[in-house]
């Protein structure tokens, strides 16, 4: 047991290992005889990291507690007058607590499985070393983020994670659509990052001057210092400044976790390899926003206004994203919309004060969503297309994949005893208990409940289209086949997690993990199906969704909405993503770029034009003067005489006059 606690102080090795992997594969990957070798090296290092991560998580389950090791001064702004007479130290270090342990478990396990799976999925790609280098760097950054012990360090890794995501979305950079999607992802999350940064500033100055303990002031951003990391909600109060700071944090989280209105980048991010979608854009990085909200709510706390805003964003996004998934023909994008929707659940839970419940859903979601993506990846790997309407009947040639996708779907739909049921039900149940005291939560809770039905429907629509029926609808597709063992093993492991992951809640140690941070909200979360009626409603909704999906799409049926149907405009609206993407494109490409062009014009012709105007005026004046330079000696003599007379006038007339009238000496 003590051995597990000892592991905490070696936690920093996890990101370090992945950096080593990044350097090894990045520098030498292309020199190796077989490109896979670099991949295997990354898999090996990732395996060690996973063992460490799992060990730390088990240690936390046995002994929930907070381990802080802050000793690396990253930036020391010594003796700065103003609010910081002793100076500001920005100390980097590691922080291990139940939150980070759970997240670490997710990141290292899914990370390792994806690394392994990629050996098969990417084996034909010449960019394999680059892929593994970037993936290693991503894992380093992600684990670093999870282990950060202050907001600034968090932000450093947060941005690094973002840039890795940028490169991995644009992995097939020769494709213009991939390059464009990478740009979009970077810029949209950048908007969130800027808000996040402002939030950091506000917290920093607020706690530096009014923080509860001396530790806050001296260490600036350290949000867990010593043994008392908890800040009762009451101490945050209702300060307007802190409300704004909380909203800024929400902005940052919304950018990273693709919450409305910054969600547009995530569906387009599916341009990257499917493995990347599984790891980064489903299981880990996009969950970082939720994680940020969770640590903020535990260590700093949100005001009531912030909480409502977070619940509103999360609840609305849950439903909003699910509607778009309903009509989409692309298998990966359906899962992507589903990710946005599920992240909405987590955000909502964290906002309502149930940080660990949200994290629990993050935990289960990571496994079943990675499973769905990897299964979809197998299909894409085999067929080379992502269009659901070209597929069909895949359950026979791809038995493992089909089963895995079905398990993932059941988990997503919230059917017991699969993992998703427990966590989703906890969210809905815990919030239900809060509805009485927070009447404004009601509409968002109902939206979230409705989303359960949509979720079950769209994921099984995808399953029936791809795996149901008798054969591919597009005869030009190559015959389907199952991938190699490296691709199947992760599917099997993840299937296991998707089936049993939720049952962990009945393990006493794990439950203790989830109780962590409850003090922040003062409300004990609900674990397990305590309210059977509520569980019954949500399970019924999920089953109904599956039933409708079977009725419309089962057995190879294709449901075509009649042209005259009044739902046609709705369908077009959904297919066009509520025209939000078009609006953003218009703002970016027309409005902002138009302003820039206008400014450029002003710069060239107005500002520089004024300069050239002066130049011409001087030119004209000097041209006049130049004509006096006749070269004739007499003329020069005349100028000399005139100048002499000018001096006479100055000395004999002007100077005495000035002296007489201005009274100088």
């Amino acid at each position, binding site marked *: 047991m003590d051995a597990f606690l000892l592991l905490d102080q070696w936690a920093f090795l996890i990101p370090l290992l992945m950096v080593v992997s990044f350097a090894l594969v990045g520098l030498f990957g292309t020199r190796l005889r077989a490109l896979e070798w670099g991949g295997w090296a990354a898999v090996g290092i990732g395996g060690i990291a996973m063992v460490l991560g799992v060990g730390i998580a088990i240690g936390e389950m046995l002994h929930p507690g907070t381990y802080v090791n802050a000793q690396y001064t990253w930036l020391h702004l010594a003796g700065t007058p103003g609010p910081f007479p002793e100076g500001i130290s920005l100390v980097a270090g590691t922080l291990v607590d139940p939150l980070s342990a759970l997240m670490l478990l997710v990141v290292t396990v899914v990370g390792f499985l994806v690394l392994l799976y990629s050996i098969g999925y990417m084996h034909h790609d010449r960019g394999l070393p680059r892929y593994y280098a970037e993936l290693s760097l991503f894992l380093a950054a992600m684990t670093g983020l999870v282990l950060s012990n202050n907001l600034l360090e968090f932000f450093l890794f947060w941005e690094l994670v973002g840039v890795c995501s940028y490169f991995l979305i644009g992995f097939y950079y020769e494709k213009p659509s991939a390059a464009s999607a990478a740009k979009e992802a970077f810029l949209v999350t950048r908007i969130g990052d800027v808000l996040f940064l402002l939030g950091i500033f506000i917290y920093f100055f607020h706690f530096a001057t009014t923080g509860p303990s001396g530790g806050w002031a001296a260490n600036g951003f350290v949000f867990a210092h010593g043994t008392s990391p908890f800040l009762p909600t009451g101490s945050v109060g209702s300060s307007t400044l802190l409300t704004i700071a909380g909203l800024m944090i929400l902005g940052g989280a919304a950018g990273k976790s693709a919450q409305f209105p910054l969600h547009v980048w995530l569906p387009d991010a599916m341009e990257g390899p499917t493995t990347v979608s599984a790891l980064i854009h489903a299981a880990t990085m996009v969950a970082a926003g939720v994680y940020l909200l969770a640590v903020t709510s535990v260590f700093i706390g949100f005001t009531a206004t912030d909480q409502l805003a977070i619940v509103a964003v999360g609840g609305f996004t849950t439903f909003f994203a699910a509607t778009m998934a309903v009509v989409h023909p692309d298998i990966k994008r359906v899962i992507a919309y589903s990710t946005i929707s599920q992240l909405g659940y987590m955000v909502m839970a964290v906002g309502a004060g149930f940080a660990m419940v949200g994290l629990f859903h993050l935990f289960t979601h990571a496994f079943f969503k990675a499973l769905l993506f990897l299964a979809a990846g197998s299909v894409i790997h085999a067929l080379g297309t992502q269009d659901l309407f070209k597929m069909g009947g895949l359950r026979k040639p791809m038995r493992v994949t089909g089963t895995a996708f079905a398990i993932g779907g059941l988990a997503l739909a919230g059917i017991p005893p699969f993992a998703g049921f427990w966590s989703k039900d906890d969210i809905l149940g815990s919030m239900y208990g809060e509805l009485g005291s927070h009447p404004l939560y009601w509409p968002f809770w109902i939206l979230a409940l409705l989303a359960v039905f949509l979720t079950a429907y769209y994921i099984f629509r995808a399953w029936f289209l791809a795996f149901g029926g008798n054969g591919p609808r597009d005869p030009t597709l190559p015959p389907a086949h199952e991938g190699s063992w490296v691709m199947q093993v992760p599917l099997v492991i993840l299937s296991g997690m998707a089936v049993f992951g939720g049952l962990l809640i009945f393990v006493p140690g794990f439950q203790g993990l989830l109780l962590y941070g409850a003090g922040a909200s003062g409300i004990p979360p609900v674990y397990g199906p305590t309210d059977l009626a509520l569980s019954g409603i949500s399970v019924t909704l999920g089953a109904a969704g599956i039933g409708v999906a079977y009725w419309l799409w089962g057995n190879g049926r294709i449901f075509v909405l009649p042209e005259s149907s009044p739902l046609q405009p709705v369908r077009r609206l959904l297919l066009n993503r509520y025209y939000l993407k078009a609006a953003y494109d218009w703002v970016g490409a027309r409005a902002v770029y138009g302003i820039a062009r206008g400014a450029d014009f002003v710069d060239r012709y107005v500002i520089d034009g004024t300069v050239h105007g002066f130049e011409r005026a001087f030119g004209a004046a000097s041209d006049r003067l130049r004509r006096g*330079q*006749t*070269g*004739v*000696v*007499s003329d*020069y*003599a*005349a100028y000399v*005489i005139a100048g002499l007379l000018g001096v006479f006038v100055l000395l004999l007339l002007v100077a005495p006059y000035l002296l007489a009238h201005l009274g100088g000496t």
Partner: protein
Amino acid sequence: MTTLPESGFLLLSGLLLGVGVFGLLTRRNFILVLIALEIAMNATILNFVYFAAFAPHAAGLSGQAIAVVLIGFAATEVAVGLAIVLGLNRLKGTIDVAQGNLLKE
């Protein structure tokens, strides 16, 4: 010694300088320009000599000494000026001042 009209010399000097300047500016023949210059020069020398005679501290005869130096300079100037005139004449075939715009080219 007989008395002399004190301001008269200065007036004469000023008038001569005016004449010299007038000639300097108006004559087109280079030699006439030189002569005008000499007139102006002589007006200046006259001033020095006058002050050597009448100034309150004239004992040192500085004015006369300077006048000597100036006469020397003036003579040199004429020599060089005439050399320029000859050079110009050879180069352009004329000694018209208005044609001598070498400074411009």
